């Protein structure tokens, strides 16, 4: 009896030791990684700052930057007084006519990009689904294409397309659209991989071609999923197209860049508020639409 207990105690101690060793090893690796990455990202950098009395002093970058961050954010808050509130707000949003136009452009870029992305992603999702692809080559090619389209950020596509198609919303539509195609193509093809194959067999048995099988066997099953993913993507695209103007691809982002470089601080806060409100409104609207079309609880 006692030998069994002793054996248990011994095994237990050994297990505890191994667990502690694993923990120590993982902790050590983490600490080393943190130190390495902190060093690589200038976390410990020391900088020179000019003090109030004009002398130079050495400071930790983060320590020196935090007050500046506060100052910067404080400058973006406009001068609002209760007595002259309407006038102050009118001054704050003084460029509203330009912004309203650019805001419309932003939403339209997102809309068109989503449409292009849906068309391309939908077409490719059947070729990129393991259970539906007509042959291995098509599967491999379409999967790699979708991967590249979504791994390269839309801002990088925008840089490339601004060179090709010139400054303006057209480049933005193409860039966001291409990225959307990659992202939606993946989601759609995953939805395709989860379908019931029996309807397709039925269509095939009655002499349907590959396209007939997709059209009458697969599409009706995945349509609700596709709608849900598409609406979610539209919201994401509104965000992307609001910053894509930073590299010249149209939308509100170009105003952001102007306000940043000309140090028009209050314009910045006004732009943030505009983007924030737009994103929230579109969030809510598409959620309502999704619930209406798909029914509650079916959101992906």
């Amino acid at each position, binding site marked *: 009896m006692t030998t069994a207990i002793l054996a248990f105690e011994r095994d237990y101690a050994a297990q505890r030791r191994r667990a502690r060793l694993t923990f120590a090893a993982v902790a050590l690796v983490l600490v080393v990684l943190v130190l390495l*990455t902190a060093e690589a990202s200038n976390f410990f950098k020391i900088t020179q700052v000019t003090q109030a009395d004009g002398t130079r002093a050495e400071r930790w*970058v983060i320590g020196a*930057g935090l007050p500046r961050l506060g100052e910067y954010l404080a400058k973006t808050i406009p001068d609002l007084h209760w007595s002259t509130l309407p006038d102050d707000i009118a001054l704050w949003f003084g460029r509203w006519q330009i912004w309203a136009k650019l805001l419309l452009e932003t939403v339209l870029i997102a809309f068109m990009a989503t449409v292009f992305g849906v068309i391309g992603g939908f077409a490719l999702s059947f070729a990129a689904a393991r259970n539906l692809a007509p042959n291995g080559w098509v599967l491999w090619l379409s999967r790699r294409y979708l991967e590249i389209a979504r791994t390269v950020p839309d801002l990088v596509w925008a*840089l490339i397309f601004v060179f*090709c198609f010139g400054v303006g919303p057209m480049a933005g539509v193409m860039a966001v659209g291409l990225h959307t195609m990659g992202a939606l193509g993946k989601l759609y093809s995953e939805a395709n991989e989860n379908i019931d194959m029996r309807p397709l067999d039925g269509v095939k048995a009655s002499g349907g071609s590959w396209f007939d099988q997709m059209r009458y066997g697969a599409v009706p099953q995945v349509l609700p999923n596709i709608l849900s993913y598409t609406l979610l993507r539209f919201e994401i695209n509104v965000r992307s197209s609001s910053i894509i103007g*930073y590299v010249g691809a149209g939308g509100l982002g170009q105003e952001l860049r102007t306000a940043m470089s000309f140090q028009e601080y209050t314009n910045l806060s006004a732009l943030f508020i505009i983007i924030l409100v737009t994103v929230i409104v579109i969030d809510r609207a598409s959620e309502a639409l999704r619930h209406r079309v798909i029914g509650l609880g079916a959101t992906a």
Partner: protein
Amino acid sequence: MTIEPISAAEIARARAEHPLVFSVPLAVRLRRAALWAGFMLLMAWCLYDFNFSPLRIWEGLGRLGRVLSFMFPPHIWSEWREVSDILKGLGETLSMAFLGTLLGAVIAFPLSFLGAKNLNRRPFLRFGVRRGFDIIRAFETLILALIFIRAFGLGPLAGVLAIAVAEIGSLAKLYAEAIENTSTKPVDGVIASGGSRTQSIRFAVMPQVLPVLLSITLYNFESNVRSGTILGIVGAGGIGFLLADRIGAYRWGEAWSIIFLIIAMVYLIDALSGLIRARFIGTWEGVR
């Protein structure tokens, strides 16, 4: 027994008797037509407003073709100085994603307790904290990076802080949801054996959520590696700066090579974190 085929006359009779079965109601058809017409009009107007002319597309595609022709063979840097620049950029992007996610996770972890319904019983406080997460999430990482560049200067530090702040919003929300999905039975067990509230969190809630939290954090690390590659375009460090620089100088061969390297890096990180997930957490379905 044989089945009589339906004659054409019978079909015609059925059609006349039950017209609604054979056709879509007029109101529905009209609504569909109106929706499609509206959609087409909007598209047409967009195409017009954005100057999508065939000529412009043709010219752009020509230029795109020329740019694409620099993809193969990919540019290979011959001098060590250039190679080390690129490697440094990639390393910076990885460091920014890693440190940013870690800092965000460290701050988001305690905050998520305030946002979880089963741990924070004060609805007002919980509501305020939750809306706080929402507001942080409404800001793009890129916009945060632009703000931090003004305070901390150009370079990866601004990128790290931008990713960290953005991650506080998203991780705290995901963590809080994971905590809300825990079972109450272990908590009851700890309380029944005389444990305090803190002990019930430590010994009943934490063991349930830790794998989920780790999995969520790894996913966000992956997505930060992807999104971190663009922070350099606005000057917040990493490989994006080199990429924007090469594209700005029309050195397309090098630009494409950098894009290939970014794709390879993202692949590698995905595979690696998949391994870590499988090793420490097991295959976990249903995160996100």
